[in-house]
């Protein structure tokens, strides 16, 4: 079923009885060419691009809960391509290009809104670092503009410019940065994949990965054994547990990242804004809620919830930077489980087991990567070759020290990126 205004009109006039499921709910078959473990954003987009780009339709996505129930449905919805290290630069650039036009591609309004992202800086040193970043973005073919204090004031007049602990020196404006409706991205890819023949199996937990003679042969699940020639692990937040089923130990520690949303408010914040001297970034959803987040709680957690110190830090950062939002009330907080790697950058790679592929380690940058990750991972699974924009996301970079992508410069401490 194609979605359009006309369809809405005709359905509305006939009692809205014709709407069909956005995706099928098939029983799992006993064998697939490819089994994707994980029905989150990345798993669904991988399935979509396997079908769309490579014509591979005998594919199943196995999800232990409900589709899109992981981090794709619990993030702060920011979409950007503002990395500066080789590897990340080309990947996020590619991913952003896929975002641009995703609604038309999927026939699903994911509300990708390129409203502009401003990273604020608060010292000469930070300005220099952002200049380097912005120049890298332009080198890559993406957009970046360096704003001085007055430039920031023009865009964000509501910041506290006069009485703030760390005055605003300027900002890096990335006009193509913005937000999207997170759930819709998962649903759009699910619908696209399902329509192309991919089986999306919910409430199906993988309990084992079958390996014979160094080659993957299938998976054990709570809904029975499923044979497969290729198996792809895309389970952010549970990567370690699933990889362990294949005897692997990953360079990943799982951490909780909190996010917050306020009551609905009339438009107050029209960009995505991030503070440079504390952990705080914010945007306003189309529904009117201020959506904001900060840094990890810093201790490993699978609890999908956080504690007060980080929540307070985030609100304190908000109050020093933009005291205009003080009377906005937080109505809900939540946490996601982040696959934190030693350099803060992800992994899309083969494994030592033939036919077993791995896509993980997105830290807290996974949402914007959904299209790019699915595209590149599908390419790797289908062809056995790394897709150029994701070619540096190798598992062995930590062992060799070559090609580390430590954007934060905090080193091999998983929780500090």
């Amino acid at each position: 079923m194609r979605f359009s205004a006309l369809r809405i009109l005709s359905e509305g006039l006939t009692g809205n009885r014709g709407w069909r499921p956005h995706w099928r709910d098939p029983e799992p078959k006993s064998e697939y060419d490819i089994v994707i473990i994980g029905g989150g954003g990345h798993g669904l987009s991988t399935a979509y691009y396997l079908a769309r780009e490579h014509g591979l339709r005998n594919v199943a996505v196995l999800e232990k809960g409900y589709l899109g129930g992981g981090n794709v449905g619990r993030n702060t919805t920011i979409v950007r391509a503002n990395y500066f290290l080789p590897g990340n630069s080309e990947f996020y650039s590619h991913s952003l290009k896929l975002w641009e036009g995703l609604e038309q591609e999927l026939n699903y309004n994911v509300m990708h809104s390129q409203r502009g992202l401003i990273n604020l800086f608060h010292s000469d040193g930070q300005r220099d670092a952002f200049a380097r970043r912005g120049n890298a973005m332009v080198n890559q073919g993406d957009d970046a503009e360096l704003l001085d204090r007055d430039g920031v004031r023009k865009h964000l007049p509501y910041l506290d410019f006069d009485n703030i602990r760390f005055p605003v020196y300027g900002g890096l404006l990335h006009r193509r940065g913005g937000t999207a409706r997170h759930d819709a991205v998962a649903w759009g890819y699910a619908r696209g994949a399902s329509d192309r023949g991919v089986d999306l199996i919910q409430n199906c937990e993988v309990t084992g990965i079958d390996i014979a003679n160094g080659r993957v042969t299938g998976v054990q699940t709570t809904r029975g054994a499923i044979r497969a020639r290729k198996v792809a692990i895309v389970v952010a937040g549970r990567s370690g547990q699933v990889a362990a089923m294949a005897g692997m130990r990953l360079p990943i520690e799982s951490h909780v990242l909190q996010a917050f949303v306020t009551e609905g408010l009339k438009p107050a914040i029209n960009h995505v804004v991030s503070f440079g001297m504390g952990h705080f970034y914010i945007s306003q959803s189309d529904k009117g809620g201020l959506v904001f987040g900060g840094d990890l709680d810093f201790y490993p957690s699978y609890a999908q919830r956080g504690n007060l110190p980080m929540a307070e830090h985030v609100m304190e950062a908000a109050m020093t930077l933009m005291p205009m939002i003080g009377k906005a009330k937080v109505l809900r907080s939540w946490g996601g489980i982040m696959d934190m790697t030693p350099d803060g950058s992800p992994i899309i790679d083969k494994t030592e087991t033939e036919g077993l592929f791995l896509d993980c380690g997105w830290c807290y940058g996974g949402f914007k990567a959904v299209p790019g990750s699915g595209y590149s991972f599908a390419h790797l699974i289908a062809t056995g070759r790394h897709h150029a924009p994701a070619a540096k996301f190798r598992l062995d970079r930590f062992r060799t020290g070559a090609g580390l992508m430590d954007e934060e410069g905090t080193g091999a401490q998983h929780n500090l990126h």
Partner: protein
Amino acid sequence: MRLKTGGLIDRGTALRFRFDGHDYTGFRGDTLASALLANDIRVVGRSFKYHRPRGVFSAGSEEPNALVTIGRGAGAEPNVRATMQELRADLEARPQNCWPSLHWDLLEVNDWASRFIGAGFYYKTFMWPRKFWEWVYEPAIRRAAGLGALSGAHNPDRYEKAYAHCDLLVIGAGPAGLMAALTAAEAGADVILADEDALPGGRLNGERATLDGGAGSDWAAAAVARLRAMPNVRVMARTTVTGVYDQGTFGALERVGHHLDDRPRGLPLECFWRIAAKRAVLAAGAIERPVAFAGNDRPGVMLAGAVRTYLNRYGVAPGRRVAVFGNTDEAHRTAADLVAAGVHVTALIDARPDARSTLSVPFYPGGVVTGAEGRLGLESVRFEAGGRSQGVMADCLAVSGGWNPNVHLTCHLNGRPVWDDGIAAFVPAPGAVPGLIPCGAAAGVFSTAGCLADGARAAAEALGGLGLTAPDLPQPEAEDAPYRIRALWAVPGKRRAWLDLQNDVTVKDVRGAAQENFRSVEHMKRYTTQGMAPDQGKTSNLAALAVLADATGRGIAQTGTTTYRPPYTPVAIAAMGAGAQGKGFAPERRTTSDQASRKRGAPMIEAGLWYRPSYFPKGGERTWRESCDREVGWVRNAVGVTDVSTLGKIDIQGPDAGAFLDFVYTGTFSTLKPGRVRYGIMLREDGHVMDDGTTACLGEGHYLMTTTTAAAGPVMRHLEFVAQVLRPELDVQMVSVTEQWAQFAVAGPGSRDFLNGVLDAPMAEGDFPFMACGEVSVMGVQGRLFRISFSGEHAYEIAVPARYGDALFRALVTRAEGMGGGAYGMEALNVLRLEKGLLTHAEMHGRVTCHDLGLSGLMSSRKDYIGRAAAARPGLVDPERERLVALHPVGIEKRLLPGAHLFAHDAPAVREAAEGYVTSACHSPTLGHPIALGFLKSGPERLGETLRMVDHLRGVETWCVVRPLCSYDPKGERTRG
């Protein structure tokens, strides 16, 4: 309509207030909601999506409809629940989400178009043309969405945060909570009793039921008074426990100033409490749920318990002709209270066919309401009873679908409530929160007597855990009616019946979601937005679940719930972020020379938490560059003084101190002799550079390490880690002495003569050679002198106890000025170090190795040290890595910009061709042109090569030549001389 008598309000104190531009009067003890109802105000706002007129629905924080903006100007507060706002003198409230007015709202067109804009319609349209999303559709949607508006001005009000500690936190001061608190308090426990209401007592304040023959509210007031008088009890009214966190930590919001006619200066509006409790009793009561039927959102349709509260507590009849609809005895109790208050009850409709009534009101057992009519307020109700559809006039319909135990807080640590068929509701799972014991209505016990007993039981259980014994308190006599419910969620019908009033989610929306395969409860929630409004679906989630369960052919228990998350009720960012507005976000650290520097007109800039002078302007100078150039000249030609106290200073002592330093530095320090200083590099264990600095040997087994300003904290933590975790066998003690010493660099060719003028015993020839240190007496004070240099000149750093810092700085600067020099700031300091090719964290940015910095020579090969193994990884010693060099401009335009990228001279400025970047740059007055440091692939092997420097952002493209790191006195003769 205000009743002639009754209620707990103070009829002697009339308060004038303003709503929607009109003046009204209420009484002390009213909420804004009760005062509006007393003045027959029915429409108080417009709904989120369809902009339907809405009225007061509840009498508590679960209120989905009556959200208003309070106040004017900068302090105006949107989305305030009228049911929670106590009336105060001259309160001003405005309706929200309506234009041009509350009664004529243009966006009511949405309501007429509702069949086209049901749940999730926006996922299916607004896609063409592509650019229209940002230009047309999204701005229009954003303007229509949202509820209230922020004032747009900086928050003008004071908020605060505080901590509290207790043995037992009792959450809720209804019958169960009061009994629990009394029991625990009598046992001697340290108790906090927190209640959301201004008037503790819970339902006792809203019901006519008696305790020990007296009014329930009187018993509650007496109990509260008794508790307040006990030294081991803290009663916190107006305090909502908003969140449960690990190990007995609770977040709670106290509304401190909202209710006051005049707020004393300094009084916060709200206080956000962090409460650490050894045990907790959850006595948060229950929330009544409505029943969905056509038009059930009309102003006048109200929860039955709320109707009783308005009658009994506020002396207000929410209508003149009231119909009552329910599926438990609550309906009868409501009708009885209405009759007792003299209000006309037009119908009592009970969904239970076997229900009986002794009231003399029209009674319809087995009946259900099928529709509510009236655009700006309820006018009539249609219902079916005995197989017949009939209508009745009513301006208020009291609805009760039963009660939902307030399980929210038990879910904050991921506990899932369990379904109880007997009361058709979810109850807390046992042990959902360690140490928290649910009781009373929150645990599904609904009679007053049951709540009292259960509160005492819960307290006894908590006391057991605390090692205390519960006293046997007498329990007051109270009603103990059984709770008989016939579950009813939604009355079937073709027209729209609302579930989530706040987000405008209807039964049709939930069924439609199921039809489109959003069958998981989470999918339904996200697709329809059910329960995602500010009330988190307090009155609607369960009915929505039931409708979904029905639509998907599952049971409610099997369908499961969505997750309740903190906060229980919305919390202002200003409350949780209290104290940070303005300068409070981080402590301000000031050096001892701070005042003197400011007095000299130096702009102070933030350096981490510290303030440091940028430069010291002199009359006639028009730009900072002129000042900076002058200061550099002073140091190069005469003498300059600058405060370096912000650098970290760590005193390290012990028999194994040398071995310890050998392990944390790449170089060897155990061979350093007393009176000598050595430069060192510290790596992280992953082989990258962490920090650099000098360490002085003050005596046998006694060292003083300096760190960079930024790394002082992390380095201290790292050293403790090494000492305690990695090498506990080493006998070494360390402590920060950063704050103890005021330390000033004295640099320049005249510095030795200069110092000899202030030292009590001048240095003899040969004393204090380069990298020496020792104790000195300066102007009568015992200090330390270090012959080290960050400028490339003959230089010293002199340290005195911080109390003398201010005086010494003033004296040094005055003396330097007398010698043709003076104070210099951070700008000059940066130029001086760049001319010498010395490092800061602009270069040591966390991704570089010793090898990249040209410091491989400092890596000892004869010992183990932190980072040694990882630094040997092939990727970290690759000669083609980006390595540090100096850059000098060539060509006509001489500009070098930090953050610019480097390319081969004929290469395009694209990522694939990028070969490095500039980290730091300045104008060198000494050399007469700009200089820079930067990282360049194979840099040191490309000396003399001309590169292209491109800064897209600032539109600069110039040429530069690769030079050795040190651009000034490369042999170091001036430093050593």
